[in-house]
């Protein structure tokens, strides 16, 4: 598989590649962004990248367990977002700060 | 989208047709609303332009187009312009997933020296397997246009209105979702087309091992889900920001909600979006509870047979059949839309706290109860 065929035929590897790239972008967001809320969004992106791999493998292996796991991951992600944002907002209300560097003072 | 050029282009035309239909229904509805309001309030309403004032809205549209394109200083230009455009998308995506009529066939023919077809078309933008989920997903995007508008205007009243509107929409989405779960439970499918198919013929169901058939009633969902239908109607009022739930636009408190700063054609697009939601809601109500495009006592196959007897098997009869059902569906939709309009001019508006508490403390528990009851009766009647 080479040349133009790489673009005209879609393979599972394409999806995996895409999900790797998305994951890497999410990691970069986590590592580089300073706004805590954006960091949380980057985490969501990472989770989605993993979801994409799950779905790809579910299709490739013809097993629906992957889809169920995506379901679960979504639930966890939503729960994480709800609680995480609640914490961020609680801190923001008090300290007016969402910079991730600020949170290092919480290490105790 | 299709196997060959013709099918692809026909399908594309179909989609455009459905979208334009939605857009074109808006002036009609506004006219209906204003005339209706007039009659309800013992006035005449618009009656000067054209017969019965029917072309009034055409004139309005022209006026909208002529308006000055205006943008406030503090607005975020991208969001400010994006919001009204984006407002159209959820409604049109959802509308195109609703079946408006049965399938019709174009038999094979030769044209331009090659063979085409046969084709099978359906009076529906596109057929989605997980229809309801698709529509819910599309509808859940509607919040963004509101938030974009509210934030993009750079006006705190707009923002306040946007937050209130989106809070309201998501609150009622829960009750709506639960009601739909009960519907899904009854039909056992997500596909709207299948739902319509299942509602054909006289009312008949299996009840504790016996088949019960009631000939004088159609097999419509309303008879299985009476509470659900009412809850759905109420929730869709709130979802489409209609009175008595039009709090986001409460003039007294919020000037005009999230579109305070909007005017001219942008405002018109919001209008189209909102009426589009209304149309989608009524179409869904019809599809879930009132038999979709089907006639009450005559299934589409029977009607097709009648047509085929009269016009012979072929394009004519199947197209006629489809168009008849399209008309039936539109008729039903207009009845529901009239209910929307009528309610608007009958009931007073809620206060915001009442609205939210109604959503969370009344609608949600009722929808839950409805679901539990449905599930219990369903399982019990099928196992014993």
């Amino acid at each position: 598989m080479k040349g133009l065929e790489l673009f005209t035929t879609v393979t599972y590897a394409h999806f995996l590649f895409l999900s790797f790239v998305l994951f890497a972008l999410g990691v970069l967001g986590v590592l580089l962004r300073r706004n805590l809320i954006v960091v949380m969004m980057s985490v969501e992106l990472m989770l989605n990248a993993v979801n994409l791999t799950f779905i790809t493998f579910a299709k490739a292996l013809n097993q629906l367990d992957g889809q169920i796991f995506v379901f679960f991951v979504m639930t966890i992600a939503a729960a994480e977002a709800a609680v995480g944002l609640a914490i961020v907002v609680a801190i923001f209300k008090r300290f007016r700060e969402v910079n991730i560097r600020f949170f290092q003072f919480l290490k105790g | 989208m299709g196997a060959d050029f013709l099918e692809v282009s026909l399908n594309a035309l179909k989609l455009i047709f459905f979208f334009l239909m939605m857009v074109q229904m808006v002036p009609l509805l506004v006219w209906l609303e204003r005339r209706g309001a007039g009659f309800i309030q013992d006035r005449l309403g618009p009656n000067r332009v054209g017969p019965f004032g029917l072309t009034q809205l055409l004139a309005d549209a022209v006026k909208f187009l002529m308006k000055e394109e205006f943008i406030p200083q503090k607005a975020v230009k991208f969001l400010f312009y994006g919001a009204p455009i984006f407002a159209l998308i959820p409604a049109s995506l959802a509308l195109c997933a609703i079946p408006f009529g049965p399938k019709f066939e174009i038999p094979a023919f030769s044209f331009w020296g090659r063979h085409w077809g046969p084709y099978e078309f359906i009076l529906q933008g596109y057929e989605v397997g997980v229809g309801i989920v698709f529509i819910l997903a599309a509808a859940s995007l509607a919040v963004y246009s509101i938030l974009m508008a509210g934030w993009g205007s750079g006006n705190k009243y707009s923002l306040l209105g946007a937050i209130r509107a989106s809070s309201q929409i998501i609150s009622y989405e829960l009750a709506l979702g639960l009601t739909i779960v009960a519907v899904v439970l009854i039909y056992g499918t997500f596909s709207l087309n299948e739902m319509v198919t299942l509602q054909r013929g006289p009312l008949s169901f299996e009840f504790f091992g016996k088949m019960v058939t009631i000939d004088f009633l159609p097999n419509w969902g309303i008879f299985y889900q009476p509470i659900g239908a009412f809850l759905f109607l109420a929730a869709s009022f709130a979802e489409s920001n209609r009175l008595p739930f039009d709090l986001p636009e409460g003039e007294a408190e919020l000037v005009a909600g999230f579109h305070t700063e909007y005017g001219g054609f942008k405002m018109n697009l919001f209008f189209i979006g909102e009426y589009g939601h209304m149309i989608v809601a009524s179409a869904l109500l019809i599809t879930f509870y009132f038999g979709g495009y089907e006639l009450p006592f005559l299934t589409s196959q029977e009607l097709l047979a009648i047509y085929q007897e009269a016009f012979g098997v072929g394009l004519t009869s199947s197209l006629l059949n489809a168009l008849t059902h399209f008309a039936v569906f539109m008729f039903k939709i207009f009845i529901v839309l009239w209910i929307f309009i009528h309610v608007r001019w009958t009931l007073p508006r809620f206060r915001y706290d009442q609205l939210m508490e109604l959503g969370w403390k009344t609608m949600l528990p009722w929808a839950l109860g409805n679901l539990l009851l449905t599930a219990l009766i369903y399982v019990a009647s099928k196992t014993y």
Partner: protein
Amino acid sequence: MSSELLFSLLIFAPLVGFAFNGLLGKKLGGHLYPGVIASVASFISFVASVGLFQLVSEQPEQAKYLVIHAFDWMQVGTFRLPVQFLIDPLSSIMILVITGVGTLIHIFSIGYMAEDPGIAKYFSYLNFFLFNMLILVTGDSLPLLFVGWEGVGLCSYLLIGFWYEDHEKAEAGMKAFIVNRVGDAAFLLGMFVLYSHFGTLNLLELNSLAPKEAIWNWLDPITIGTLLLFVGVTGKSAQVPLYVWLPDAMAGPTPVSALIHAATMVTAGVYMMVRLSYLYTAAPYTMIVVAAIGLLTAVLAATMGIVQWDIKKVLAYSTVSQLGYMVFACGVGAFSAAFFHLVTHAFFKALMFLGAGSVIYGMHHQQDIREMGGLNKRMPLTYWTFMIGWLSIIGLPPFSGFFSKDEIKWFALASDRGGNWIFWGLAWVGSLLTTFYMTRLMAYTFWRDKKYSADHQPHESPWVMTVPLMILAFLAATGGFLGIPHAIAQILPGHPNHWLEHWLKPVISLPTIKQGITVEYEWLLMGLSVVGSFTVAMVTRYLYLNRIDLIDRTRERFEVIHKVWVHKYYVDAFYQKYFVENLVLSSRDLWRYVDVGVIDRLVNKIADVTKELGRGFAWLQSGNMQNYAFITIIGLIIFVLFLFKG
């Protein structure tokens, strides 16, 4: 109903009762609810065991058991430990006894513990005990049995120290616990030995794998394993030399003594040996040890029982003595007789303990028999039921004790697995001693003139306490008909066979009668026992009621022996001097030199090093989440690199 359902009822009813009383009992308030709930739970369990018994009896003769598989506990290599339960003739009788007697004792406790503030706790423990005991007797492998074994030990500890405000009582609980640990350690070792030899710990498999021929070898793993298990038995079933905890265990509430320290838990060791009868018969040296220890216990405990003044202590030594009989019976291979005695003993000893409880209750918690007397008038129901227990334990026909004890004595002589005249003689003497001290107890408690002060008017117990007494009295009176001796059966119309022996035949190893011992011997032994017991009872009664001076004089004459008996052969003192004190001393030395000198220094050093290291690495915990994430990512990269290898 399926066996699974019945079995879960059996097991979970007490567990639910335990949880309910333990969690909510105190909240409910009232002194009635916890008892009623616990009793109902126990009764449900009893009903379930009746059902299981029925199911077992419906099984075909070749496979007369039910196996209930719950789940797999663990699997380590080839060692697979399923949590599986076995209901066979043996355990079906056992669960009947446990739940039946247990229910009666629960009901009795409603009255006895009515005034206690910790009643909910009490009943939750009691239910939990039932649960563990049921696990013990139904578990189909030694580890599972051991789970129940430890569980009942825990409950016993909790219930002995139930009134933990009293320091002595709390210590009694600890003593029971610690002494049992010695036995349990040996039990575990025995399990290891058996597993390494047989490769399984399943009870049925162990029995079927046991060699058919006896192995006369002290160093054979079977001998060692069974001996080690037997050390566990001496702990749990209070045999010499580990019996010392049982008399102290009387610190607990009396119904507890009845249930745990007489009827059920202490018989667990006997049950275990009966369970592994084929294994034990394969190890004749073990059998000799078992028989000797059992007989020694039976006689020594009886002698100590003679000099006790506490009504419960007397019964406790009697229990130790009777347990000695059971163990002895196992030792001579008469497992069915041992089990028979286990059942009848459960009836009459529970009866007597509950009777004692009733007396204590009536006497306003007075336990010294010297302060009693003349209670037969004030507490007629208690008196008559106690009387049946007495008749039963001294072995007068047709009460149950006669049948079971006589069978043991018969096998003491006639078993081809080591029966002889010496065994029989000692057993006979032991039974006469039993008669003596039990009659003494009767005389002091009931027959003598009243000794209590006027402001301590004893009163009859309420019906929740007397009804269980009456039911148990009925059982103690008739329980013996489960196993009518062959000699008697031959002259009875219809020749009823020894039902229990017949019932147990599929699961346990039965002894054969020695050559040359005929039915006439059996009649002779029976006669000697009955006549001996009767005479001793009459003489004792006469002496204690009319010629108490003779008793006193005898005591003064044999002051030395008396002193030895009162001091329990100085066993406790011995332990105190050579184990406990040494332990304390050596612990102190250990603490002083090893702990402070070596370990503490080492630990401090490690702590210092860690602190230094921590200071060095502290920059890593900067609180900057992005750095943490970065470190995680580096870990991920390393993981990905590993993927390349595979």
